[in-house]
C-alpha cells in the first residue's frame, strides 16, 4: 500500500545515510579523522564530528536528490538548523570537556542521482 504513494525508489533515511557516507569518505580522503557519527542528545543530532590539525569540526551534511526544484542543499541550512547544530555542539563540548578547543562548523552538501550515486559534493568550511 505504502509503496503506491511513494514514487521514489528510496526513502529519506536511505538518501541521508548515503550522503553521510560520501561525506565521511571525502573527509577521510582529506586526512580528517572522524570522531563521532550521528551523535545525539536531547537538543538534536550532529551528523559528523571530525578532527583535523587540532581543530574540532562539526559537519552538517545536507543532501538533495534528482532535480533541484526544492532548492539547493546549501539553501536548506536555515537559521533554525544553525541554531540547533550550535546548541547541540555546545552540549557535546560540555559533555566531553572540550570548551577550550578551536572549533569550526562546516557544511557538506551532497547532490544525489536517482539511483543513489553521488552527483557532486561541496564542502563549505567555517559556514556558521
Amino acid at each position, binding site marked *: 500500500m505504502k509503496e503506491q504513494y511513494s514514487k521514489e525508489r528510496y526513502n529519506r533515511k536511505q538518501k541521508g545515510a548515503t550522503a553521510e557516507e*560520501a561525506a565521511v*569518505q*571525502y573527509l577521510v*580522503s*582529506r*586526512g580528517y579523522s572522524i570522531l563521532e557519527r550521528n551523535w545525539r542528545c536531547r537538543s538534536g543530532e550532529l551528523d559528523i564530528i571530525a578532527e*583535523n*590539525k*587540532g*581543530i574540532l*569540526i562539526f559537519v552538517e551534511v545536507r543532501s538533495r536528490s534528482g532535480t533541484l526544484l526544492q532548492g539547493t542543499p546549501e539553501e536548506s541550512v536555515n537559521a533554525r538548523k544553525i541554531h540547533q547544530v*550550535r546548541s547541540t*555542539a*555546545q552540549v557535546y*563540548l560540555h559533555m566531553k570537556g572540550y*570548551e*577550550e*578547543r*578551536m*572549533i*569550526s*562548523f562546516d557544511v557538506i552538501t551532497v547532490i544525489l542521482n536517482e539511483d543513489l*550515486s*553521488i*552527483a*557532486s*559534493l*561541496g*564542502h*563549505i*568550511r*567555517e*559556514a*556558521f
Partner: protein
Amino acid sequence: MYGKMHSACLYGIEGVMIGVEIDLANGLPQTNIIGLPDSAIREAVERVRAAVKNCGYRYPQQRITINLAPADLRKEGSAFDLAIALGILTTSGQLIMPAAQEMLLIGELALDGSLRPVSGVLPMVEAARRAGIQAVLLPKENAAEAALISGITVYAIDHLRGLEISGETTSEVEPRLFPNEVDSVEAASFSPLPFPVSMSTGSASRERPPILAISLEHLRYVIPVHNTSPTDHSLRMRNEMLDDYSDVLGQQHVKRALTIAAAGMHNILLMGPPGTGKTMLIKRLPGILPQLSDSEALEVTKIFSAAGKLKDAHSGLLRSRPFRSPHHTISGAGLIGGGGIPKPGEVSLAHRGILFLDELPEFSRNVLEVLRQPLEDGVVTISRARASFTFPAQFMLAASMNPCPCE
C-alpha cells in the same frame, strides 16, 4: 588573547574617549559586543567581518568579545568600525601595528574595506588631545576637520589596505598558520574520489604572513598650504557675502537700532507692515557683526561638527557668525534640540550668532515658550531618561512681525 584600542564617540556635543577592548578565546565561534551599544554599533560586526575578509585577512573563528568601556555609557554611531577591525586584526596576529594602541581610531567601514566619513570628528579629536593622545587615524574626508586641532598628528586612510606598504616584506616573521587551511597543492595529492568535489569557505582566505604596519608616515595628513593672509581671508568673506549692509538706502532709524543691537548682541524685534524691508534689514545684520574669536570659533565649529553640518572643513574653523532662520513650522524639538539621544537644535546652531524668527506670531505658541530658558540662561538643558545634556545657546534673537494678522 587581548587587545585594547582607543576610539571616541559623541555625547551631546562633547567627545568622550571610549576604550575598545577585544578578547579572542576558543569556544563556539561567535562575536559579542558589550558595553551598551546601539543598533548601528551591533551591526558593526557584519561590516567588519566583510571588510576584513575582502582585504585578504581572515575573520577569526573564535569566541570574540568586544567591550566598549566605560560600560555604563550608552554609545551610538558607526565610528567604532575602524577600532574594532584593527583590534581584531592586531589581536589575532594578522596585522602588526605597534602605533595602533596609542592612537585614536575613528571611521566607518564599507563592506570592501574602504572608509566612510563620520560626523563629530572635531569634538572627538579634541577629547583625545585632552586625554593625552598624540595621533589620530581617520577617514580621508575627515582629515581636514581633525587637523583643526593643533598638537595632534593626523593620519588619513581611505582603505584598510592602505596600512600595508608595498615592498615591506615580512620574511623574518614566522607565518601564522591556520590549521584548517588546505593548500591547493596539498589537496591535489589526496586520493581521488569517484565524484566531483568543490570547496569554499565561509570566512577564511588563504593563509599568509602577518602584514606589517610599523610606520604610518605615508598616511600622514599634510594641511594644504593656502597663500592667504588674514586680510585676504576677510576680503574673501566680504566677496562671499551677498547681502551687504551698505546696500540699505535710508531707513536711518532702523539702521541705528540694528547697530546698537549688534554692538551689544541685544535681541531685536522689527514690527511693521509688509514690504517695508524688515526681513531685508535683518538678513544684512551678520555683515556688521565682528568675526568670531579663536575660542568662539572652536565652540561654534564643534557644535556644527556634532550636528553633522560641517561640510567644508578645508577652509578652517568657522569664522563668520552663524545666521539661522528656521521656518515658522519648526517644532519645539527642532528649535532647542531633541531626539532619543539629543542633537543640538537651531538655538544651539545659532550660538554666538543670530537666530532670526521671521513672522514671529506665526510660530506655534509651544515653540515660542521653549525659547524662554535659552534666552534667560544662554544654555539649553535637555533631559531624557538616560541622561541630560546641556547645549550652549547664547544667540541674538532677531524677529520680525506684522502688527496685525489681517495685513
